[in-house]
């Protein structure tokens, strides 16, 4: 039997191949047949109607073109959280806590989405100085028509879902600091509150219609934040630090060795973060135009230079370049270039990346060790620090030749960053940074206290030693035996 089918199958396949080859030649012969036509054009005619048609045709084509890139970008940004960040963090913890880390990211993909649909989008992108109103609750009035306040060409649905992806990854970043000791229930409750009380207002102030830090919208303190250095990375990074302090150290830290259980997973995660970040930064042009290309390049250059920076620092210190160092550097560079991506040229992007790579290396290896807090996976060391570095350097390197965002009353473009001679912008950036730091820190403390009283935030010591996978989720990541 074992033999007979083998025999049969081999014959089948031999016959198959012969037939296949015949087919191919047959087909190949026909290949030229394929006509190379293009869609026929309607009969011309120089009538106003026809011109109107053309106007609409152009608008529609432009909209489709931008939409193609924005939908791809939205997908890329989701890829950053799942599996990107989930793997990056999951690989860095000990095996017994790995599913827990992944679940915390995955939970955001689901739960923040629901919050977003109900009120989140409205709070972030409705109108108001500090926070949006309820005009878009349940996504009321969010359809395929563009929302001119934010993007003239793509359907508002696209803008809405694209922004949602940012709201998903931001709280997920915090879980890097609370890793290996925070309750799942506590995480869910805390994130729900944090999203409404910290993220929504901050996103609105910087990006929302009427937000008082909104540079494009002419806010009081025009803070340049192209893709979320302040809104996403500083807010999550600073909140992460507060969480780490509030939760306290993991049992055994720092005495007990806690090496990453799988550098391989973190490596995959970092690569997916890098790739996804193109959607994050270049997508923030909200169109498929030259600015998107420019931001794409800046993003890639920032990441690359930061890898070089971090690795060089490591080499000088240890005489070795580690994979963990390289991927951490990449993330640091991507964080730092985020606010700058759409404002700086390729060479400044390299400079920003290099600075962030070295800067975050020092944060993670020196500063953290000095203060001794347990920011388990360096959410603050990389996102908080990198975001801050990036925000300030954006003020330095932003240039109108890339993005003429400021105009005088006459609509003439004005100088943007220090490199343009507008050194005051560095001040504006600092203002934005300080507000974000303060707002995130205070909000987080308050919400942690509330969460603590509701569900508690930290698992019992026994649960911690058994691991969160089993105690919080009743599963194990690997069941290799049997």
């Amino acid at each position, binding site marked *: 039997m074992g033999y007979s089918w083998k025999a049969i199958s081999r014959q089948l396949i031999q016959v198959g191949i012969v037939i296949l080859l015949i087919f191919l030649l047959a087909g190949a012969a026909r290949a030229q047949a394929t006509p190379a036509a293009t869609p026929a054009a309607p009969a011309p005619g120089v009538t106003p109607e026809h011109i109107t048609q053309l106007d609409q045709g152009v608008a529609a084509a432009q909209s489709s073109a931008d939409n193609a890139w924005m939908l791809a970008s939205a997908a890329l940004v989701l890829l950053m959280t799942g599996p990107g960040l989930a793997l990056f963090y999951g690989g860095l913890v000990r095996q017994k806590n790995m599913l827990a880390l992944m679940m915390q990211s995955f939970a955001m993909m689901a739960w923040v989405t629901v919050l977003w649909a109900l009120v989140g989008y409205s709070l972030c992108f409705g109108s108001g100085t500090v926070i949006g109103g309820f005009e878009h609750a349940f996504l009321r009035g969010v359809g395929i028509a563009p929302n001119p306040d934010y993007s003239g060409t793509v359907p508002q649905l696209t803008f809405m879902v694209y922004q949602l992806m940012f709201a998903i990854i931001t709280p997920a970043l915090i879980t890097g600091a609370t890793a290996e000791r925070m309750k799942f229930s506590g995480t869910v409750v805390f994130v729900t509150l944090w999203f409404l009380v910290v993220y929504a207002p901050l996103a609105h102030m910087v990006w929302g219609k009427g937000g008082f830090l909104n540079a494009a919208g002419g806010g009081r303190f025009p803070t340049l934040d192209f893709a979320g250095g302040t809104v996403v990375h500083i807010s999550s990074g600073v909140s992460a630090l507060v969480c780490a302090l509030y939760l306290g150290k993991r049992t055994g830290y720092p005495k*007990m060795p806690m090496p990453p259980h799988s550098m391989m997973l973190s490596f995959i995660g970092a690569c997916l973060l890098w790739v996804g970040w193109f959607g994050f930064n270049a997508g923030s042009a909200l169109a498929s135009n030259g600015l998107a290309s420019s931001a794409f390049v800046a993003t890639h250059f920032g990441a690359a230079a930061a890898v070089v920076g971090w690795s060089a620092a490591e080499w000088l210190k240890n005489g070795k370049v580690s994979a963990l160092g390289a991927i951490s550097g990449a993330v640091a560079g991507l964080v730092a270039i985020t606010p700058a991506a759409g404002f700086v040229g390729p060479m400044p992007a390299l400079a920003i990346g290099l600075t962030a790579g070295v800067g975050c290396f020092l944060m993670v290896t020196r500063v953290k060790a000095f203060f001794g807090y347990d920011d388990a996976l360096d959410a603050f060391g990389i996102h908080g620090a990198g975001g801050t570095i990036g925000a300030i350097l954006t003020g330095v390197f932003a240039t109108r030749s890339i993005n003429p965002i400021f105009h005088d009353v006459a609509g003439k473009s004005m100088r943007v960053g220090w490199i343009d001679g507008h050194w005051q912008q560095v001040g504006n950036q600092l203002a934005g940074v300080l507000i974000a730091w303060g707002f995130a820190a205070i909000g987080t403390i308050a919400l942690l206290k509330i969460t603590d009283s509701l569900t508690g935030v930290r698992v019992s010591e026994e649960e911690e030693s*058994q691991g969160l996978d*089993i105690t919080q989720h*009743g*599963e*194990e990541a690997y069941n290799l035996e049997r």
Partner: protein
Amino acid sequence: MKKIEATIQPSRFESVKEALLEAGIEGMTLIEVRGHGRQRGHTESYRGREYSVDLLPKVKIEMVVPDALLDTAVAIIVKSAKTGQIGDGKVFISNVDEAIRIRNEERGEGAL
């Protein structure tokens, strides 16, 4: 020469190791095992199917010591492995006839 086989809680291994090294007991071999005994396990559930996991991760230390060192070694292990809770594990002692160091074929207690 005696062989000591100690099955302990993984979380205690580091301290046991350090205690032994301090006492100048260098040679040991570590095996990751799973154990069953009085200690209760936990249940896991995958798509509604429940499994009771009653084999728990333990670490087994094997070391051969000169008779003279036996009691010290055992005392150290027991002391630093103890948490007082069910699941702390066991120490077994048995006899070893001969030991050889592969590197230089030295035999007997000198080989340890």
